[in-house]
């Protein structure tokens, strides 16, 4: 798991995606080929911003082993200002949740390979105050 995590660190720590210069579409996770333009794709990196809106969410109770300490936790689809949708955890009380709420990205721990393994960090979201 270490190399596969490490390889995409820059897209996990920050909301960086890829943009197809040919059609202007933006994607996260990063893609090598634009699904609309295919061979005509021209891919560059783009900052997706740290603000978004909650499209939908679920409170997870039956969690994989590595997430058990965190449950119940909230998983959601967030539409960023750039229009891109990402899957991420929302760090807040379930009672605060509502579809359409404004959220902002924060840096959080996602898990670890046991007590002696490496720690996985990434982006989560919290409700926007303003």
């Amino acid at each position: 798991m270490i190399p596969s995590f490490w390889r995409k660190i820059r897209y996990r720590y920050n909301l960086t995606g890829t943009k197809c210069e040919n059609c202007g579409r933006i994607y996260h996770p990063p893609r090598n080929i634009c699904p609309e333009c295919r061979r005509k794709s021209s891919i560059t990196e783009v900052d997706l911003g740290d603000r978004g809106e909650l499209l939908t969410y679920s409170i997870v109770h039956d969690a994989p082993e590595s997430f058990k300490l965190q449950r119940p936790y909230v998983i959601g689809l967030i539409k960023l200002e750039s229009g891109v949708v990402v899957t991420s955890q929302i760090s807040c009380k379930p009672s605060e949740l509502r579809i359409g709420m404004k959220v902002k990205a924060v840096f959080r721990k996602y898990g670890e390979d046991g007590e002696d393994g490496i720690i996985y960090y990434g982006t989560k979201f919290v409700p926007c105050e303003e």
Partner: protein
Amino acid sequence: MRKVAIIGVGMSRFGELWDKSFRDIVIEAGIEAIEDANLEGKEIEAMYIGNMSGGRFLSQEHISALIADYSGLASLNIPAIRVEAGDASGGVALKEAYISVASGIHDIVVAAGVEKVTDVGSAMEIMDSSIDQEWEAFHGATLASLYAMMARLHIHNYGSSEEDLAMISVKNHKNAVNNPKAQFRREIGIETVLNSPYVAEPLKVFDSAPISDGSAVVILASERVARKHTDTPVYINSVVQSSDYLAVQNREDILEMKAVKTATRKALKLAKCELKDIDVFEMHDSFTITELLLYENVGLAEKGRGHELVRDGRVEIDGEKPVNPSGGLKACGHAVGATGIRQIGEIVLQLRGDAGKRQVDAEKGMAVNIGGTGATAVVSILGR
């Protein structure tokens, strides 16, 4: 392309089959299918096997050769092919088998599906491996939670309710009572569903199909050969597979299952029929919301109105469009890679009139088998 018929159907029981191994259950289903088709065994020219994760459930890969071997076909040296598409593996196996006969390459082939899940403790996490591991599962998303997000949005946008979803589970449990192969042959009340603990809100334990041991086998033959073996062939009018973005986040509208829509449209066209001509359905109710979304994406209901079908009983076994007379994945059991073939088996029994107490009056049937959150869909139309 030649016409292709199904001449034999076999199924193991579904459930926690503690005393049966992977090999035992697939052979159990296989023998039943061969007897049903009135074959000796050596007529089989190829095997297509749907299996999601022998590697993780059993640490056993190369299961294609294993199954051919234990089916007693090692000495015939036939080709055996394992296909994988999450829990749509069975449907894809059927499609591959169909192509091999329709194209004229083979005359008699086996399409099988099998999964043995109870030899490990973490079946759910293995099930979840059909979602995007790097960008969904890494963040704590599970298969259930992705469907739960769809359910949440459907309820929010269209006024469906947790009760509507629960009624789908109630219906499927009721149907399974009359299916001797089913895992849960008991009726449940809506309270049982609503009072069960949340898996991923708003989905509960009783909104979710079990992960089961089980196997299903169908035997395909060209029309000419079929007539030699059976008086009641059931024809595969069409079988179409489609794909979509793997991760839910990349789909334009998460309540739109484009793979299902595309496959349905093409399948109906190839079968030269319309949805109104289909009398019975087997649909992939991995969660109650999955079945509800399939009503809409197959076209039984308009978008945002799937729950109305549940409310007016149109999808009940005695309704206008019976869905999951077998009990579906929820109550018949979800043996992952076997499910797509199990659905086909049910449609064949229904069309032949061999479905016993759960018999529906049907000329044509449709099976909808999907992988994970819908990135693979296989739609099959069968007719007498």
